[in-house]
């Protein structure tokens, strides 16, 4: 990732030279050639400029600071502070930090459970909504999609009120049945977060799948009907294979989303003592940077998070591609 972005950052400048020399086949006349060759770059320019500023440069900054180390002399560095090349020591420090590694492990566990669960749930919901057997599909679609419009922070505030003892009506109801679930305990709070994420994103993912389902040609269903295929059979042999791209897309996004988890944990932390300040990788990087003031190690952590997201998505795409071919 880093190497590609590095070269690509400089690319636009180098590349417009050959573009101008070689006339494009489509263009007629030399006057035209220049304009046509320039056009894509002009069209791309605003996007590329901002992309450079907000993606490429920060990645380079992160890389530079992740390889920088500060050394201090005196009790507070009052006798001198110097920064220099650190090699991989920041990465080593990030990876030897038990809490940071634990947070990555926690997110893997979270992803392994929550992502498949949510994808199955939203697929089943989409199939049911599109099966034609449901009444008021428009209402349900809207109801399921509504939480997506509630920002993660606000969704977490909402759910935290439903989790906190003394405030939660859910606990009151559970109490009637003689149960006293602890939504915020050390073993349960991860799944309370999973619930918030599921609540927020199931409707959105469902809508992507519904969109893909709607694009399936009617003839396919008719052919299946002629063959006397059951609803289940239609689902497994026509619908599921054809919505595969949507499933892959939603899964990749969910994987990336899982590694990015931040707001839910940070907000819930105020009511759940079981959530420490390095509960998720992002929270860890944030704490390292802004509470511990260690921007260099935080940069190393950010790079590691990006690498993990990249690798996981890549592996997942490779895996699904191999399976389909």
């Amino acid at each position, binding site marked *: 990732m880093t190497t590609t972005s590095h070269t690509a950052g*400089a690319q636009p*400048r180098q590349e*417009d*030279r050959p573009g*101008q020399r070689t006339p494009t086949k489509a263009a007629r006349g030399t006057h035209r050639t220049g304009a046509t060759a320039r056009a894509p770059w002009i069209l791309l320019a605003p996007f590329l400029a901002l992309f450079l500023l907000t993606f490429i*440069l920060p990645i*380079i*900054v992160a890389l*530079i*600071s992740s390889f*920088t*180390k*500060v*050394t*201090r002399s*005196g*009790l*507070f*560095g*009052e006798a001198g*502070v*110097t*920064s220099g090349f650190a090699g991989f020591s920041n990465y080593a*420090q990030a990876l030897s930090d038990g*809490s940071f590694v634990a947070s990555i492990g926690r997110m893997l566990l979270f992803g392994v459970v929550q992502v498949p669960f949510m994808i199955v749930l939203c697929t089943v919901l989409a199939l049911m909504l599109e099966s034609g057997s449901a009444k008021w599909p428009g209402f349900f679609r809207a109801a399921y999609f509504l939480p997506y419009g509630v920002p993660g922070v606000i969704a977490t505030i909402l759910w935290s009120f439903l989790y*906190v*003892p*003394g*405030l939660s009506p859910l606990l009151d109801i559970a109490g009637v049945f003689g149960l006293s679930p*602890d939504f915020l305990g*050390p073993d349960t709070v991860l799944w309370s977060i999973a619930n918030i994420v599921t609540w927020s994103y199931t409707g959105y993912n469902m809508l992507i799948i519904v969109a893909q389902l709607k694009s399936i040609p009617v003839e396919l269903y008719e052919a299946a009907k002629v063959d006397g295929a059951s609803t289940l059979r239609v689902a497994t042999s026509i619908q599921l294979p054809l919505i595969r791209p949507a499933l892959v897309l939603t899964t990749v996004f969910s994987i990336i989303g899982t590694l990015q988890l931040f707001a839910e944990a940070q907000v819930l932390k*105020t*009511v759940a*003592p*079981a959530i*420490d*300040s*390095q509960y998720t990788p992002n929270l860890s990087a944030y*704490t390292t940077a*802004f*509470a*511990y*003031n*260690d*921007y*260099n*190690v935080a940069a190393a952590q950010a790079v590691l998070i990006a690498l993990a997201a990249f690798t996981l998505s890549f592996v997942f795409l490779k895996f699904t591609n191999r399976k389909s071919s």
Partner: protein
Amino acid sequence: MAQLSRRQLLGAGLGTAALGILTGCATPGVTSVNTKPVIPAAGGEPVTITYWAWLKDLQNVADVWNAANPQIQVNVEWIPGGNAGGYQKLYSALAAGGGPDLAQIELRTIPEFVLVNGLVDLSRYGAEEYASRYDKTLWGQVQYAGGTYGIPQDAGPMGMFYQPEVLAKVGAQPPATWEEWAAVGKELRTQDAYLDCFPLADASVFTAFATQAGANWLKAEEDGWVINMTDDATMDVARFFDKAITDDIVQTGYGAYSPGWFAAAAKGGIGSVTSGSWGDALVQGVSGGEGKWRVAPMPIWGSTGYGSSYLGGSTAAVLANSKHPREALEFATWMTTSKEGIDAMILNSGIGWSPAPEFIGTTRLEPSPFFSGQRYNEEIFVPASAAQNQDWSWWPVTQQSFNILSDGFRKKASGTSLMDSIVTSEQQIMTVFRNKGLTIRKEAS
């Protein structure tokens, strides 16, 4: 061709600019304001000072000052409390080369801001002449490496808020020692009540107990930092709470002043809370609590240690990018030592204990109706603020150390004792020091 070279030039220019930015933003906070010349007083020009703090309605306090001092106008901006977001804002403002003149910073966080060159050494602006007005322990906690890095603003000498009715169920009086405390706690369990909570997720309370017992975790010496978290005082406190938790004498499911705590306290399920003097305002939030609470001295560790400890407390510190440190200092000392300043802070912001022993605040001399007419401030907290461990001092990675400690404490649920986790925490904290490029060694026993 002309076009081409122009674009190339532009490209090269952009490239250079980008490179300049990149090299410039390597690491913030490596140059010290305290090696630069002292900024002279404004000299007649009216100045405006900004103060970022999380105390509520502090602007009203500043307005009292503003009315009398047209030359120095103070503007208060509210920020979230400490690590709930306030410090993050301050650090980012510092990293961006800005920030307010004054900021509310907890005593324990002062060295962390010193480490990133975030604070002005006020001794260069004559802070020493005010030293005698402040509580000795608190003044000691703003002194680092020969400088003064903040003006104590409020504090929390510890005492014990208790419900006589709940204690009476087992015929107990407020315990004078921690031994008695454990015995009362055990008795109360037969009445389906807890005497108190022990917060596994917040190490500051344990730290205050260890301080009371006489611990002194970090010392600054000539050749660097010296750590000792495994001294007898700390280990005794850890052993004591290990047993209390194992025997189920303390509640660990929720912390003091959480929604669950308020519910339990209102129902008589919690007998007491050993906490800073600022707990009085919070205890008054227990529904139907009027007349049911009193205040007693904090239990003591037998014949060793001190009568009380400080829990919490903050300062007004001058930030590195301030243009008017002298004026900021002037305002901060007025606010924290003058009668009108202290009274205004109590009235508007409900501050904790006044850092000026001379004056604890007019309203605090009155008997309290909520606490059944007890004059608890004079009776309990004035002596408590005098019975402090004056050797205690904070260190540049306090917050991270607290997180390390509480991460360890959380493992108590799965069987790791507090004593064991303190031993491993000490090692981790030493690593943190070294990773920051600081020198540290374990104190020879």
